[in-house]
């Protein structure tokens, strides 16, 4: 799936994550496969609770998958020796979803930002680190930096915290950034600035992105040249180049998502179908997943048999895969390739 022969920065193969709780196992992520190369963007979209964060945490090495492999530059991160792992650690940065929890309450913004700089020798002394931290603040639109550097997280607004979190991820000049809803608390204007800044990193410094968002407009804007994967109940149900996924969605779930996007136009947005046209708005319980296609109870394209057979994520075109009996069949009948190919 990678254009050139590059080794992908990150590759997830058959990754599973099952949480054991006292009420039973929660299969939060099942059989997820994707890769992110340098300068590439993979947007992960999907319903709340579908396993985006869990996948991202596995990609970031924060959670050991219960099955499958997470590889960085071709090497399984859980088989790495400590030197390799450190290299991976520094090259892959992660921005947490909730900036209220991911900032240390007793460390000022300056302390948060200068610590990694000093630790990894990116700044020679405190003064330099301070300068760099100020620069980082400016990059995430926390201006003037002096007003923010000495603040503590509880003195910042949600969006300001989120920007500090992003700035922190940038300190080490990472090769891959995993951003979990990292612009969700920003207003449009600042968000655009941020995305532009990140886009520059992507284009000029070849930074790869695993970009989690629920906002398809952002996925579109930021991931236009990359790919978008749509997750549903722990599985990837559709994946492909972003323009195609957004402009020509195949999976009924993706279509529903797109139908539901609100518009900044009161008249227009109120004409949208409730539920994005789905049959039900009920999200099934992960512990008692529906049989067959897990989407079938909500699917507007439901057919007999959908509730019996589990659809596989099958190729329907160049770099496009969809896990749907109905739309998959329609498109595949032209291409005639029933078996699934795995990338790499």
């Amino acid at each position, binding site marked *: 799936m990678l254009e050139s022969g590059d080794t992908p920065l990150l590759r997830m193969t058959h990754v599973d994550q099952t949480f054991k709780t006292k*009420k039973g196992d929660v299969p939060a992520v099942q059989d997820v496969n994707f890769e992110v190369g340098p300068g590439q963007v993979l947007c992960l*979209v999907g*319903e*709340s*609770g579908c396993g985006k*964060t869990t996948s991202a945490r596995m990609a970031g090495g924060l959670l050991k998958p219960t099955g499958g492999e997470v590889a960085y530059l071709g090497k399984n991160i859980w088989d790495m020796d400590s030197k390799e792992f450190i290299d991976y650690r520094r090259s892959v940065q992660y921005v947490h*979803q*909730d*900036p*209220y*929890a991911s900032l240390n309450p007793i460390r000022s913004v300056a302390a948060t930002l200068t610590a990694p700089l000093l630790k990894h020798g990116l700044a020679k002394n405190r003064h330099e680190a301070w300068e760099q931290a100020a620069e980082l603040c400016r990059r995430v639109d926390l*201006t*003037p930096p002096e*007003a923010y550097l*000495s*603040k503590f997280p509880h*003195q*910042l*607004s*949600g*969006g*300001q915290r*989120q920007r500090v979190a992003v700035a922190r991820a940038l300190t080490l000049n990472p090769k891959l950034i995993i951003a979990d*809803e990292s612009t*969700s*608390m920003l*207003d*449009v*204007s*600042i968000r*655009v*600035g941020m995305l*532009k800044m990140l886009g520059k990193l992507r284009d000029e410094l070849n930074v790869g992105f695993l970009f989690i968002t*629920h906002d*398809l*407009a952002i996925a*579109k804007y930021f991931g*236009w040249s990359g790919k978008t994967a749509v997750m549903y109940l722990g599985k990837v149900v559709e994946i492909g180049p972003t*323009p195609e996924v*957004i*402009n020509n969605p195949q999976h009924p779930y993706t279509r*529903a*998502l*797109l139908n*539901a*996007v*609100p*518009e*900044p*136009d*009161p008249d227009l*947005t*109120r004409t949208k179908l409730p*539920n*994005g046209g789905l049959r039900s*708005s009920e*999200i*099934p*319980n*992960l512990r008692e997943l529906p049989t067959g296609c897990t989407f079938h109870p909500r699917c507007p394209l439901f057919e007999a048999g959908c509730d019996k057979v589990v659809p596989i994520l099958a190729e329907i075109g160049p770099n496009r895969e969809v896990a749907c009996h109905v739309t998959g069949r329609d498109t595949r009948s032209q291409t005639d390739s029933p078996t699934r190919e795995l990338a790499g």
Partner: protein
Amino acid sequence: MSDTSVASPSSTRTAKRTDEPVLSVRDLVVQYRTGSGTTVDAVNSVSFDLYPNQALALVGESGCGKTTLGLGLLRLLPRLGHIPSGSITYRRQPGATPIDVLKLNSRQLRRWRWAEAAMVFQGAQSAFNPVITIGDQMADTLKAHVREGERYNKKEGIQRAGDMLKRVRLDPSRVLGSYPHELSGGMRQRTLIAMSLLLDPRFLVLDEPTTALDILTQRGIVDLLAELREERGFAMIFISHDLALAAELADRVATMYAGQIIERGSLHDIFYEPRHPYTSGLINAVPPVVGDLPELASIPGSPPSLANLPVGCSFAPRCSYATPECRAAEPPEETIEARDQGQSHEVRCIHWREVHHERKVIARA
């Protein structure tokens, strides 16, 4: 207000819009003390009225004081925040005696909160006690507001909590028994929304309630809120930076910038004829979801630091209409003619007449 009648879900809530607002805020100032004795005005002389059954969207740049305003309304400011001036008046029903929220004692305040005025917080991660189950926290909320002389009915409580969870599309059997850390970010947010509606409050402050939610769920929530509002007639203040959501939900919109409400008006007024350059810029910055990759317009410059506001109009440094007068004095709030009948439109910009907003035509797939 009598304490005993607070938790009644039964009374008729579908009150008609009258001249009596449920909440009227006048010249509210919220200050934070920071180190070395300085203070910042995170909310600066804010006034608005909230009528029953009305949805007021509060939009604005990150850090402009939306959360602070919300917290201030419920008197939930952190220990370093305080309200030096202004007033908050609450009226349970049209015609009821108004209550000065700033004068409630702690007991009255406790009864008032959540039963009359609830809030969904930004950052739902830390909004729940990490060591007890969601179910217990729900029950706590219900128990805290049982009417005097009555006893908390456990079965009914679970039933009510379960119903509410179902409405935010969560599976009660799973969520009630879970600890907060076992839920995904979005699930927590929905749980918090469910909890906020548990007691049928008269007005609701929702602080970016859907930021962590996917579009379908967001939509579900928005629809749900609309539906519940219709059904129960509560008013709400919907804090968001997402104009599209506001467009979907609100009747009225107020735009905040650097601690002040710089423009407020009806939904249509704000979206179709915004008179403040900032509002206009904000609307233009929303990226469309369909079509080819557009060049995004953003407002030039960065938001000012509250500690260090420019003299005069605080938006002036970023404003293309700005003139020396703007930098000389703070612009007063002017009431201008509204598009919708019976609505008002206020703006803090001396150049409002010059501002002409181009309505974007959104191409639909």
